[in-house]
């Protein structure tokens, strides 16, 4: 059964209480001594919540240190790309938000980016859930873990981008240019030279090897044997190896 009542100040809004039991033998009035097993407060600021907690001292769970240091996280129901978030996913997201955001903050640092990524992950997960529903596939077993993994993937991707941007700025700066980056530049020039010197088929074979095509697959595509395809490619590799040696770059 739910009981609704107004607090002392109308500014605080309405508090909905469930399973409210007055203390046996207590002579105190309702608002001050209640055992609250479950409560939900709408649109109240954290400080007001704490003030209310001090009023209803008995049985009220003390807010943890983590909660007091961090304001309650409110997830938008739409991510930055305009995709809506399913209510089920939203609930799970709210549940794991404190831990997930704290963890991500240690990696990335910027809470604004982290919040965006969290919303983006939630939207992507809702999309996946909807797709699974529509196609009749079995639903996600552990939505919490699924969402957390999706979020962490985005965090690591963002971290990689940050590192790449740092490296680029170092390169442009010039003062921090390392011998390693010079070597990689030479290596790239050499690759361009050698690849340009190859015939069309060898170039295309290299592109297919990049995507993990087997020799059989490549040979079948060109109508030659797997061995012939391999020989062509090996010759190009040999040329690169030789050129690297000549220029004193480690292979």
């Amino acid at each position, binding site marked *: 059964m739910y009981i609704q009542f107004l607090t002392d100040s109308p500014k605080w809004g309405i508090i909905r209480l469930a399973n409210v039991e007055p203390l046996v033998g207590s002579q105190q009035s309702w608002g001050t001594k209640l055992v609250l097993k479950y409560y939900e407060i709408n649109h109240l600021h954290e400080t007001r919540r704490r003030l209310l907690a001090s009023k209803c001292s008995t049985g009220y769970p003390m807010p943890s240190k983590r909660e007091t240091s961090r304001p309650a996280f409110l997830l938008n129901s739409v991510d930055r790309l305009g995709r809506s978030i399913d209510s089920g996913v939203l609930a799970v997201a709210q549940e794991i938000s404190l831990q997930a955001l704290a963890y991500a903050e240690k990696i990335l640092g910027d809470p604004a980016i982290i919040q965006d990524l969290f919303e983006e992950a939630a939207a992507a997960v809702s999309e996946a859930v909807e797709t699974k529903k529509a196609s009749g596939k079995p639903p996600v077993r552990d939505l919490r873990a699924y969402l957390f993994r999706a979020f962490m993937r985005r965090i690591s991707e963002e971290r990689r981008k940050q590192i790449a941007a740092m490296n680029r700025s170092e390169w442009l700066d010039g003062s921090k240019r390392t011998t390693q980056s010079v070597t*990689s530049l030479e*290596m*790239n020039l050499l*690759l*361009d030279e050698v*690849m*340009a010197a190859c015939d*069309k*088929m060898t*170039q*295309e074979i*290299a*592109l*297919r*090897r*990049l*995507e*993990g*095509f087997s020799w*059989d*697959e490549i*040979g*079948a*595509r*060109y*109508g*030659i*044997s*797997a061995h012939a395809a391999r020989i062509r490619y090996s010759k190009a*590799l040999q040329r*690169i*190896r030789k050129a690297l040696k000549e220029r004193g770059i480690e*292979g």
Partner: protein
Amino acid sequence: MTDPFEKKFLRILKRHLSRDFPNPKRAGCPSKRELNLLAAEPAKVEAWIVEHLLSCSPCHLAYSRILRKQKTKRDVPKQSGKSGGAAARK
């Protein structure tokens, strides 16, 4: 792929081709149809398209996606030996 040199070569080549040639205006890029044709029947495509793939990151990424799709679909013709290939070319 057992040769560590090849592994390293492919890793560097992939990174180089997919990052170092930004072509935001897509100048001189072949159409998607031509890239699809290259993936399906490489012998029928002109040489400049393959050369372009080695100097345009967006095209290289697009072609990589096409090849990956092709690989997952196992859309590869069955090998029928040298003579079969020659017959196919005729």
